[in-house]
């Protein structure tokens, strides 16, 4: 390193990443925004225009808003379940001093090696007609059947199984950052388990909970393969619907509008929850 100015070095290091972000993220988004304002025509497909009609069509049609609501509640429910199931696992892993700890972490990471489509197919084998659960039920009490595939339950289960590792890993690193002595201090001062959790662990883990929740919420909002394969034909979520408008109906302007509505909803909720957590964290 000779007498090169610091600013120049920093610029050279940040430059490629900045160009990549501009080229691969900002430009397509601008293009998408422009597309969403075009008009669709059955014969000509996309016609240059500047119209809000694609957004209006989505917002006044109860079918589309219904899909948005379904997506929202599935995402919120899976996020809540991820927290509920993920926290105890993350806490155990974070506080473990056993030599099996790294094996436990590996076990959490392992499912991430398998794509969501493959795992959805696996769930179909478990939940479907003639699948694992169905045949087990039939064997136990002949004549009965369990058909869980193509239900919201199957979708929630599928998304939960995909998102849980992200939540566990995020929470684990945050809980490891909380001094175990702080919990012992609370213990010696008279706080039993539930009160230690409420007054000490929970407030200190809150930033991590927010990060993990935002992460899995965004993943759930944008889930594609899981709702498509486990939800069945009548179950609609935003990402599969977007793809159908784009690829099957060739309605690029409307697909672009759906993409923006999905993105804005996700961003708004994420920003709102972060602001809430930050306020709470400062006040606490």
């Amino acid at each position: 390193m000779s007498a090169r100015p610091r600013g120049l070095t920093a610029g050279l290091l940040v430059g490629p990443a900045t160009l990549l972000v501009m080229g691969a993220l900002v430009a397509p988004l601008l293009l998408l925004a422009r597309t969403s304002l075009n008009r669709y025509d059955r014969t000509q497909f996309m016609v240059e225009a500047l119209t809000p009609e694609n957004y209006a069509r989505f917002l006044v049609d109860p079918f589309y808003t219904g899909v948005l609501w379904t997506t929202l509640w599935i995402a919120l429910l899976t996020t809540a379940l991820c927290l509920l199931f993920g926290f105890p696992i993350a806490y155990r892993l974070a506080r473990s001093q056993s030599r099996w700890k790294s094996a436990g972490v590996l076990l959490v990471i392992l499912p991430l090696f398998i794509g969501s489509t493959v795992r959805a197919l696996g769930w179909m084998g478990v939940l479907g007609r003639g699948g694992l659960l169905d045949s087990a039920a039939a064997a136990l009490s002949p004549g009965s059947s369990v058909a869980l595939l193509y239900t919201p339950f199957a979708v929630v289960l599928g998304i939960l199984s995909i998102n849980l590792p992200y939540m566990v890993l995020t929470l684990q690193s945050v809980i490891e950052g909380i001094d175990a002595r702080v919990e012992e201090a609370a213990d010696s001062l008279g706080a039993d388990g539930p009160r230690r959790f409420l007054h000490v662990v929970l407030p200190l883990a809150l930033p991590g909970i927010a990060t993990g929740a935002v992460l899995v919420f965004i993943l759930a909002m944008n889930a594609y393969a899981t709702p498509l394969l486990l939800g069945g034909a009548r179950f609609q979520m935003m990402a599969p619907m977007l793809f159908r408008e784009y690829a099957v109906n060739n309605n690029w302007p409307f697909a672009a509008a759906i993409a923006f509505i999905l993105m804005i909803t996700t961003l708004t909720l994420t920003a709102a929850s972060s602001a809430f957590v930050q306020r709470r964290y400062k006040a606490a």
Partner: protein
Amino acid sequence: MSEPYLRIAGLTKRFGATTAVRGVDLDVRQGEMVVLLGPSGCGKTTTLRMVAGFIEASEGRILLEGRDYAGLPPHRREMGMVFQSYALFPHMTVAANVIFGLRMRRLPRAETEARLAETLEMVKLTAMADRYPRQLSGGQQQRVALARALAIRPKVLLLDEPLSNLDANLRQQVAREIRGLQRAAGLTALMVTHDQDEAMTMADRLVVMNEGTVQQVGTQEELYERPANPFVARFIGHSNLIAGTVAGDALALPGGGALRLAGHYAPGTATLAIRPERVRLAPPEAAEARATVLVEDATYVGAHVEYLLALPDGTRLILHDPTDGGGGRRHAAGDRAGIAWDLASERLFDSAGAPLALRTPIAA
């Protein structure tokens, strides 16, 4: 004699194949400050954590006011703990930290407020009540940790290396503050430290531990003047330990030569323990001289001159010669000198580490 306030009996902790604490017995009177002292890994912290209830004992009992505390979780023990890292609640103000234990006890609001004011006054932190721990200095955080433990009016105050995260120049002052508060409140306290000076300053009685076992229990004077074994002799005040064989009134050195002893002991293998400040220089030909030594090094360190001496067989011995303002070193490297000491300063241990008794000389 009445039952002690806190009794630890046969306390043992095994982690797998290793035994961290082995049969610790200790009685603590009410209002007494007992300090567990020892090198790292000696089991002192494990012992304290068993008393606090964070670690379950493998064997033995902990009795407080005659009641067996086995199986009682920490939050039901009424023991105030001060941690080495302070372990303050980072998301709570000083005031919220201090009243945490009172909130857990659902104390009435008025009493909580009164105790908060009183406790903050005690540790001189009233002005800091609304600060967060991260806005305080190390010494202030330490006092919050102490206040938080004192606020619950604990049956026993437990201190785990409370001074080791403080600057050296703060330690003495904080040590005296803690001691003052403990005395004023008449609190029974159990403290752990690896620092001998800290232990000497703060304790009513000390417990020296090594390799999981108690080496000696006693006051500062007892440990210093009458160490129970070579380990205590070396750990408290850094004694010279010289191995040899007692024959007549001399200690024969393994490499040849001998030291004249002040007392008479049973013959056999023995270790002489003698403190650097209890050995004095004497002319080699003087009647009191117990050996002639070679001066290898002499360093002026202020309160005394530290001499590194070689005994006839080459064994090293350290001698502290107090300075009196008149002169510095009386000998330089290469000089020959005599050394002397009194009977009261001499302590011999047998090969098993037990003190050798003095034998009254047979009347001639």
